[in-house]
């Protein structure tokens, strides 16, 4: 069963196409990562799913109901959209009580979610005294208030300290294990890789990938990072490797060679033959970030030229 489906979903803002005939199905249960470069259409998709904006064309369903009737599923969906939004002069508890009343929920839920996100003891303080991390926790508490089947969280770890990030990561995993579906939009690809079961990648409003995280990670390849003992030898080393038929990319202060671990000795021999002493030779695996950058563009310039090629799609 799909928790979210979109069919040829398109949204234009004037001449800009934010979503371009996006067709995707998101499975129920588990944690789903929604990733894409800035301006890829993630927020537009989330807003359509929540009924905040309407599509230009195409259709979408959430929990089996069309997004043109969000009242049918609103009580089953919890949201954290962009930055947490609260009334600064009110306490955390009062903010949650106002949302609980709007959703016709018993006020016991307020205590339950405050406990869940670790804000008990600080809940009577005005939100204006909260750090960004505490506001983020409060935003997650608001999303959990209705004990929802589907959670849509935009950058849930934004502003959290490392301990807070680990807590939220565990919380997301637990929510997924409980049988809920959690859609997480994030730029923290390491977080996405750590917690998500399913991945959706969008670029310029178009679907690049949708499938299990394991399937995406199958695309990873081994590579070897090497560096010369003396920086002046790096050009000579690169020339020798290219001459040897390897694909080489300069990444920070190392050369990244597309090669498997069993070619490490060959690389070392090629360097020695070129008169270069290596100070580093590390075999590593691509991570999600590497694959993501390869799919969506590594540099701003690549993105800009891609956008230009996309001819009027969202910037």
């Amino acid at each position, binding site marked *: 069963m799909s928790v979210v489906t979109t069919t040829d979903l398109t949204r234009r803002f004037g001449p800009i196409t934010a979503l371009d005939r996006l067709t995707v199905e998101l499975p129920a249960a588990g944690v789903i990562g929604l990733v894409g470069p800035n301006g890829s259409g993630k927020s537009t998709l989330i*807003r359509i799913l*929540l*009924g*905040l*904006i*309407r599509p230009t064309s195409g259709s979408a369903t959430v929990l089996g109901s069309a997004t043109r009737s*969000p*009242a049918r599923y*609103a009580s089953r*969906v919890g*949201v954290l*959209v*962009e*930055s947490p*939004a*609260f*009334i*600064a*002069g*009110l306490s955390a508890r*009062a*903010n949650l*009580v*106002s*949302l609980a*009343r*709007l*959703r*016709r929920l018993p006020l016991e839920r307020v205590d339950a979610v405050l406990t869940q996100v670790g804000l008990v003891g600080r809940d009577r303080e005005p939100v204006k005294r909260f750090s960004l991390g505490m506001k983020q926790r409060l935003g997650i508490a*608001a999303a959990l208030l*209705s004990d929802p089947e589907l959670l849509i969280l935009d950058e849930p770890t934004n502003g959290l300290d490392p301990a807070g990030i680990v807590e939220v990561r565990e919380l997301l995993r637990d929510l997924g294990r409980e049988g809920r579906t959690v859609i997480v939009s994030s730029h923290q690809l390491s977080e996405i890789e750590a917690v998500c079961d399913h991945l959706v990648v969008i670029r310029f409003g178009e679907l690049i990938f949708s499938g299990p995280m394991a399937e995406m990670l199958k695309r990873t390849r081994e590579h070897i990072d090497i560096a010369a003992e003396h920086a002046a030898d790096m050009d000579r080393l690169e020339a020798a490797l290219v001459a040897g038929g390897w694909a080489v990319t300069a990444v920070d202060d190392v050369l990244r060679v597309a090669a498997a671990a069993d070619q490490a000795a060959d690389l070392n021999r090629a360097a020695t033959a070129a008169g270069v002493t290596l100070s580093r030779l590390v075999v590593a695996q691509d991570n999600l970030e590497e694959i993501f950058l390869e799919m969506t563009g590594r540099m701003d310039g690549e993105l800009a030229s891609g956008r230009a090629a996309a001819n009027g799609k969202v910037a």
Partner: protein
Amino acid sequence: MLAAVRSELTRLRQPRLLVTWFGLMTLFAVMINTIMITFASGGGSLPPGAPGVAFPTLAELESPSGLMSGLAAASSMFGMVTLSIWAVVTAGDYGSGLIRLLVAAEPRRWRLLAGKVVALVILTAAATTVAAVVNVFAVLPAAGAAGISTAAWGTDVVAVVAGAWVNLFLALCAWGVLGLVIATLARSAAVAIAIGVGYVLVVESVVKMVKDVPSDWMLGTTLNAVASGGTAAVTYGTALALALGYVALGLVLAGVVFVRRDVTD
């Protein structure tokens, strides 16, 4: 809709907001009574068409309705305060981003808007009560000090106080709706307040100065007439009907815009 009203009332319990609102009502009630008594006892009057205030004569002040005449005299000032508060509350949802959470939680947007209006009307009743109570406590010592006869003020006192309260309350609700409508359109409290205050203090005043242009139907004049229980230029019934028309038109406009427009920020 009751859920939306209760939710909005919870959000309105912001100490700074309530202190500002009720504090300004208190300030203007004291100020207008002091100035009004001073002008009346000195036989003076403001130039005709002065924006925002309409002082009674000495005879009017010494009549049974004189006890509450400060409320009508300062109705435009109270109106500006109310317009501003309604605008700040409405636009604040956009400024803070809270509107996203609210619409996601209650997608039937007309319920959200209606809940906000009802909650603000309830607080406007409280603000009107503050102004009425302060008015009574301010006008009695001021009149005594200025030697103005208060002998008639005990006549039909309940009816006079209740009538003045109702008239001011209705006028303030209309001012508030104006603030809500402009804030819904502009999504900015500053813009809404600037337009509202600018209209009353500048546009209407300029129009009134152009003698060939009839101004009795204009918003500020109409709401002043409601707050005063009718004037020589506009009867109470006409003023009420006009005010109701303005409010209905404004609420329809705000409702259509709020329901149909994207929530992008």
